[in-house]
């Protein structure tokens, strides 16, 4: 991947091809062996994947462009995993990229809630209020997620924001949608990330020690009536993806040593940890407050700095998570290294549609 940041003077084709070049070089896989590419982006125009690969003269191979909002990167990896695990291809290239517009992500005009003023921060703010009311979580517990992730991001040379911040700074930043303040919302960030997915036979040729994808699951939003079903669509989509992934890996949440989860907003990380079973229901805020999810804690979450600190170029985030977790499993993360990490979990979730909640979710489990 490339360092995430703001690149007003660079084309997406330029910085995304840099990310692809870096991944290919790191893997040591001969580009000639790549027979399929999957590119994730949300708003980079038609055939953006092919436009990026043209920069590297990687032309002619089937290239699939994936749009799945914030879960696009994870969905692209899932697509490549199906191609390779299914035996159709031996080597696939996965990359995600986004050059973001400043400010709010514009909602889909056909959805009544967006038309009536519900923004993405408002969606998470509503989830936060409902969570706080139900479990007694505090504004400070939510804000601690941002403090923790910026502390980790300060150790990540690939992060957009590499500065720490105090609890007071997070809480006193301007309100975006109550109770979420600006520093509890992911920044507007450009970036790209890439990984190479290969068959077991080809993995022996890799230069860097490869990691294994032991589970790959994608789910879509489904109708749930929280009052009757006991769970909202927004939580259920992750619970289902996680259940599928744990089953596929024959693992349980307690087997995970490190996780990268969707923290576009602070409450998002707390809910993700609970929905993934990484901490008990209703205790996500307490876990953040007590440092259980910090590097060195019981289950380090977002050692890269997460979306809050690394930044969130929509289509790139899911791939960047997997790049980070690969480096974690390879023991290459320096000061932010999670000691003894042998099992890693990546989670992204995105989109918002009345009736089905979040549109897409991807969960991957990787091992050494």
């Amino acid at each position: 991947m490339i360092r995430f940041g703001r690149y007003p003077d660079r084309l997406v084709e330029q910085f995304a091809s840099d990310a692809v070049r870096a991944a290919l070089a790191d893997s040591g896989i001969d580009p000639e062996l790549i027979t399929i590419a999957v590119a994730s982006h949300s708003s980079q125009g038609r055939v953006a994947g092919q436009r990026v690969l043209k920069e590297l003269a990687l032309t002619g191979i089937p290239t699939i462009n994936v749009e799945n909002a914030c879960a696009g990167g994870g969905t692209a990896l899932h697509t490549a995993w199906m191609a390779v695990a299914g035996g159709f291809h031996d080597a696939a290239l996965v990359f995600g990229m986004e050059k973001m517009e400043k400010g709010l992500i514009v909602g889909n005009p056909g959805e009544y809630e967006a038309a009536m003023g519900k923004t993405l921060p408002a969606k998470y703010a509503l989830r936060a209020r409902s969570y706080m009311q139900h479990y007694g979580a505090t504004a400070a517990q939510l804000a601690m997620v941002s403090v923790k992730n910026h502390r980790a991001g300060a150790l990540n040379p690939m992060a957009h924001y590499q500065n720490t911040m105090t609890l007071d700074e997070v809480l006193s930043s301007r309100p975006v949608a109550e109770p979420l303040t600006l520093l509890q919302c992911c920044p507007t960030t450009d970036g790209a990330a890439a990984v190479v997915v290969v068959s077991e036979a080809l993995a022996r040729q890799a230069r860097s020690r490869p990691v294994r994808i032991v589970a790959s699951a994608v789910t879509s939003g489904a109708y749930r009536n929280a009052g009757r079903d006991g769970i909202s669509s927004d939580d259920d989509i992750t619970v289902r993806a996680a259940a599928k992934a744990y089953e596929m890996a024959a693992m349980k949440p307690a087997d995970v040593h490190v996780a990268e989860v969707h923290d576009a907003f602070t409450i998002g990380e707390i809910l993700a940890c609970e929905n993934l079973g990484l901490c008990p229901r209703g205790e996500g805020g307490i876990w953040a407050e007590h440092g259980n999810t910090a590097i060195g804690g019981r289950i380090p979450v977002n050692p890269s700095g997460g979306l809050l600190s690394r930044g969130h170029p929509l289509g790139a985030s899911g791939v960047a998570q997997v790049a980070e977790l690969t480096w974690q499993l390879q023991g290459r993360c320096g000061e932010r290294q999670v000691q003894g990490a042998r099992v890693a979990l990546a989670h992204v979730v995105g989109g918002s549609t009345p009736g089905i909640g979040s549109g897409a979710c991807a969960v991957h489990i990787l091992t050494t």
Partner: protein
Amino acid sequence: MSAAPQSQKPPTPMEPRIGKWEIINGRVELSASRCLSCGETFFPSRKVCLRCRGETMEQVRLKGPARLKNFTVIHQVPAGFTKPLVAGYAEFEPGVSVFAPIDAPSTELTSGSTLLDVHIGPIRTDKNGDSLIAYKFRPFRDADRG
């Protein structure tokens, strides 16, 4: 400070994109659909039940008072909205909630107990600065019923 120029154009209703409403005896009623197979109710109305895929739906109407379920105050608002925007979900019957702006300061609202009424009012302006109107919530007061 001079006032912003006012558009002469009458306000445009935002329906049907955001759902339909009718004003019956001076009260706003929202048009929803109920599945005849499983009984689930949806707003805006739809043709296929999201719960059971049933395709026989009957039209039903949702009217206040509805109970405030959850709300937020949005400070970074989409284009055309005035900030801060108080907005949230009101529950019209068990499991049937609608999202809309709320004409009330947040200090007057309590999730789970405040009763809300539906009225029609300006939601936002379009790119020409013209006012768009739709259903909104406001605190329900028995005295208003007359």
